[in-house]
């Protein structure tokens, strides 16, 4: 039996509830991206917030913070069978509780810890790599992360820009964080932001580029090392790596 759900964390947790209290399943997939196999029987599980809350509370009660965040981060990853991996991991974790932390080398646990780390690392990366443009009334940043990390950035930036209005736009998934005076929410976002930049914005962009070029020591040039830290896929929206100075980034 394969459970399908709507892609939300609540939906996934409802599947886990059904796995324990209804019928055991062998895999969980998001309905939109599920790739049907010949002999697999599927069932769509409707999201039920009562059921998901119960599972969520059980996770908070029984798991360490470390385990909980790795599970949640893995859920946000872009890996096709992450939900099935999580199912395998949760079965062990609900059995052993806090002792799961000591079982790193079990494959089911290790996979989740590994992917969770990757997602956490990408979040950390974008805390530094996001670039905002001052569009007059608000700050705007565009990015294309591999994993669905946008919700992990909200708290950091809404605290940092407490008296600003800002938008962080995940172009690939067409969603955005709208932040205003310390509050924020994630929403669908399809607007195309216009590129009429203020003189001041262009000036500071050029100033930043000058600074970036001057701060490197020529005698120590090491482009390979630079690329280890900042792979080319992340450079598209960065001014210092050639993004267009006159357009919004």
């Amino acid at each position, binding site marked *: 039996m394969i459970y399908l759900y709507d892609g939300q964390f609540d939906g996934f947790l409802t599947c886990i509830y059904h796995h324990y209290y209804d019928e055991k399943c062998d895999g969980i997939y998001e309905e939109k991206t599920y790739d049907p196999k010949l002999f697999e029987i599927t069932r769509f599980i409707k999201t039920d917030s009562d059921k998901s809350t119960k599972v969520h509370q059980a996770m908070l009660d029984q798991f360490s913070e470390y385990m909980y965040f790795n599970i949640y981060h893995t859920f946000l990853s872009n890996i096709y069978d992450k939900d099935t991996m999580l199912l395998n991991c949760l079965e062990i974790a609900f059995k052993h509780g806090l002792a799961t932390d000591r079982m790193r080398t079990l494959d089911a646990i290790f996979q989740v810890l590994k992917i969770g780390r990757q997602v956490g690392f990408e979040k950390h990366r974008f*805390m530094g790599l996001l670039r905002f443009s001052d569009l007059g009334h608000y700050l705007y940043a565009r990015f294309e992360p591999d994993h669905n990390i946008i919700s992990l950035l909200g708290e950091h930036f809404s605290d940092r820009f407490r008296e600003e209005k800002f938008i962080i736009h995940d172009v690939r998934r067409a969603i955005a964080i709208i932040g205003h005076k310390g509050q924020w929410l994630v929403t669908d976002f399809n607007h195309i932001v216009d590129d009429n930049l203020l003189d001041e914005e262009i*000036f500071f962009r050029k*100033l930043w580029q000058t600074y970036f070029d001057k701060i490197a020591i020529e005698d120590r040039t090491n482009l390979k*090392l630079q690329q280890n830290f900042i792979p080319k896929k992340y450079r598209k929206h960065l001014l210092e790596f050639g993004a267009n100075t006159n357009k919004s980034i």
Partner: protein
Amino acid sequence: MLENNMMERLGILAESAKYDVSCASSGVEKKNTGSMGNAAACGICHTWSADGRCVSLLKTLMSNDCVYDCAYCINRSSNDIVRTSFTPEEIAQITMAFYRRNYIEGLFLSSAVEINPNHTMEKILKVLTLLRHEHRFSGYIHVKAIPGADQMLIYQAGLLADRMSVNIELPSESSLKLLAPQKQSQKIFLPMAQIRESIIRAKEEKRHYMSAPSFVPAGQSTQMIVGATQDSDRSILLTSEKLYKTFNMKRVYYSAYMPVNKGKNLPDILTAPPLIREHRLYQADWLLRFYRFSAEEILSEKESNFDLDYDPKFHWAINNMHLFPMEINKVSYSDLLRIPGIGPTSAGRIIKQRHLIKVGFEDLPKMGVVAKRARYFITCDGKFFGIKSFDIASIKNAVNPIPKHTQLSFF
């Protein structure tokens, strides 16, 4: 407001500041208490420059117009370079503009000694006051404490900055005499001691009153130049150890000397910067701070410099082969740290798991252990996975084989 030559001046002053190594924004976790800015304990890098160094802070000088004539420094008074400076208002403005756009994590402000130490420190303090009180900036600020400046000025700055640093530059009194005769090591240690005292006092006061002001919460750091003088690696490392112990330094940075000037007491202008040596010093520095090694263990009296082919920990292990192999299911945490290929994280994971299940050799990569390095020094549940002959030469060769054929040089 946006003057045209601001671009030019930032170019000059950033270029003058680039030999300062420190760019860390780590060590303090704080929420936004003003209007803009916060800080994460882990530090955040915002980009990486072409030399592969992380750019986290806006690193610039207030001025490059220096009264000192230190032989190694690009800004020495006898050099014929363009002299320029920023006003405190300009620095604050650029910092805020960059920070709002998330280009940077904060400010690292240093300065040449302009007119005299007090004048320079006053200007630095002015920037801090503007950022903290006028712009209500709550992000990370690292400033230099200028040796010779009034104690009160340094204290005032420490109340507003997150980190302060005084560069020792050269590891011994004699080197300092040779290359920077206008500076005295006593004058450099004075502000370091003052900062240490104030940090201790502020922490003590915080224990009694929640609202007591904090002083340089991310601690102090310093920097040493490697390769400008004859000082050995051993004397540099012993100096670092002393700095960590006596001044509670958070970090000591090392910078391979770039021959920017000519001078009779300096290495030739064509000397390549000793990058591998710098790398080995950082590795040894990590051994001091996180691996519970002492400087005497890393470089004993007999050796004065690092082996450039092997890292210091491996070098130590090879010289202490009588301690190995260690059984990873039995030895203590601090012994695990001594095994090449195992670090604090993986040692912690081994300890965690072995309470429950024995750790086998196949588990090691999942723990983050570099098995191809550690295998010669460990047993897993009594089994040894290294090579047949447990002798130093064959282990050395297995870890870093000497190439059989090398390209002959034409010249």
